[in-house]
């Protein structure tokens, strides 16, 4: 029976990975200069000098890998939080981590903090911001249930959002404000391997933390009482999942700004492929999140030059109708 089950799972998982690989190479092939993808990659890997290697290694590969990692982080954290809170409308920003990360990074721009760290300054500040808001959320929720975490996260997200608005309000000059706003709108362009070196460990740590709690996610399908009676530590496990999600979201936002709706929509799209099981949703949601952000970034690059639309704006524009469709579907189920 287990064998048959595994066979049944193969096509959707394989298609998902195939789609991701295809979009990955599509992303590598798109740009202002025509560069052969495989030749460019080969030249870059083998350290050969030349335009192909330069474009591929310095621009397209970091950008593609960054979009992929950011999407995977957002999709994974969304799947984990929806499973924890037993709510398909739960979004990673509900932990307050997105806003905390944005506030941390924006403060660096505003106060010119951590000048010695260069490009790492907003990244580190973003992660610290996400961590602090997470601690505040956990403290506010106390020893409460996951549902309380949602409310606490919402409160902390509001506070962080207000503080962020204050930072924007008192921006020292219009240029600083424009820089802040553009950064907040989300983008994976003009970033290098250094950003990736920051994001990938966070992705691994967040993934491992959440992956180890997949039994709890499965059990929580039937509620906290059942999960506890099955011998699982709901409180501790719930905090670990929130920590993992905050690391993922914090690192993603600190690297690429706000990229909305991916964390909400990716698990929703992945759910049919995982037979609705929250523990089996993690991989597919990460893969779909990565594909979505990659596709959105490709669309951004295909826009006419001079009128660049920011990645976060595009994902929000595409994600909102999907979100409305989700609400519509849920409304019909309740009638």
């Amino acid at each position: 029976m287990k064998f048959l089950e595994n066979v049944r799972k193969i096509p959707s998982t394989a298609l998902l990975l195939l789609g991701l690989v295809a979009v990955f190479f599509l992303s590598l092939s798109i740009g202002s200069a025509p560069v052969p993808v495989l030749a460019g990659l080969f030249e870059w890997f083998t350290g050969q000098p030349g335009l192909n290697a330069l474009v591929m290694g310095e621009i397209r590969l970091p950008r593609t890998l960054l979009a992929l990692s950011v999407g995977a982080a957002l999709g994974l954290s969304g799947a984990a939080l929806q499973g924890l809170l037993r709510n398909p409308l739960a979004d990673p920003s509900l932990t307050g981590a997105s806003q905390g990360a944005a506030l941390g990074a924006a403060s660096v721009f505003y106060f010119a903090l951590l000048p010695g760290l260069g490009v790492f300054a907003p990244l580190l500040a973003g992660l610290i911001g996400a961590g602090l808001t997470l601690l505040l959320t956990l403290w506010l929720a106390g020893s409460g249930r996951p549902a309380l975490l949602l409310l606490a996260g919402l409160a902390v997200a509001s506070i962080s959002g207000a503080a962020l608005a204050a930072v924007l309000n008192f921006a020292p000059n219009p240029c600083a404000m424009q820089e802040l706003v553009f950064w907040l709108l989300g983008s994976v362009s003009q970033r290098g391997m250094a950003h990736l070196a920051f994001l990938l460990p966070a992705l691994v740590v967040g993934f491992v933390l959440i992956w180890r709690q997949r039994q709890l996610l499965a059990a929580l399908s039937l509620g906290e009482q059942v999960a506890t009676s099955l011998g699982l530590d709901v409180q501790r496990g719930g905090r670990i999942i929130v920590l993992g999600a905050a690391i993922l979201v914090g690192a993603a936002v600190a690297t690429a700004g706000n990229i909305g709706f991916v964390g909400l929509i990716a698990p929703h799209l992945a759910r049919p492929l995982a037979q609705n099981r929250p523990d089996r949703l993690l991989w597919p949601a990460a893969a779909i999140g990565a594909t979505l952000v990659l596709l959105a970034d490709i669309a951004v690059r295909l826009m006419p030059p001079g009128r660049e639309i920011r990645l976060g704006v595009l994902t929000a524009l595409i994600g909102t109708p999907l979100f409305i469709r989700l609400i519509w579907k849920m409304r019909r189920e309740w009638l």
Partner: protein
Amino acid sequence: MALIDVQNLTLENRLDSVSLTMEPGEMLAVIGPNGAGKSSLLQSLAGLLPAEGDILLSGTPLRTLKPTDRARQIGFLPQFCDSAWALAVEEIVALGRLPWRDRDAEAIWQAMRETGIEGMAQKNINQLSGGEQARVWLARVLASTPRIILADEPVASLDLYYQAKIMDILRQHTNQGRGVILAIHDLALAARYCDRFCLLKHGRIHAFGLPETVLTEVALSDAFGVPIHVDLTHSPPIILPA
């Protein structure tokens, strides 16, 4: 040796020095008015509430067991069950194997056979009626092959057919030295199926023992605050407000 031996179980404002025992093969009914502490008692035994006192499971103190070991021995069926996601019936039943960290196909199918839901294994839970769902929730508990099942009002809001069905399944579970403790409001149904009774009032034991000791007009009328007519000689037994 008693399957479960509870001594002086106390939970602030809910339970006050509750002591009871259950032998292997028994079905114990916890009865009493609303707010008497029935659910609190079951939840304390399941490890969901931090009650003080001693609970021995076949002589082993419950507090010395790891949560997973406790979950392997004691299955808990809450009063209100639901699934956040539209899971297949088989997937829900398989969740009962979590304490064992396996997916024992035989145990899962045995639980579905016992509850008569094997024909709907691939159906989604939200496609089933309330009575069918009740059997799925019970199958999830059976799949973990516990020695004791704690069932909190398992027949509430079920029609007569499913009430009898669920009680039959629980009775069957007590074979081979296992036991069932259930909170129940239908006293006549409980009198038909259960071996011993624990009558609670304000978190304390009002009466405990065999049906003829506990299900008396005096004890029940006093506990529930209304005159109650009892006829245990009738088949099935009659217990109604007078």
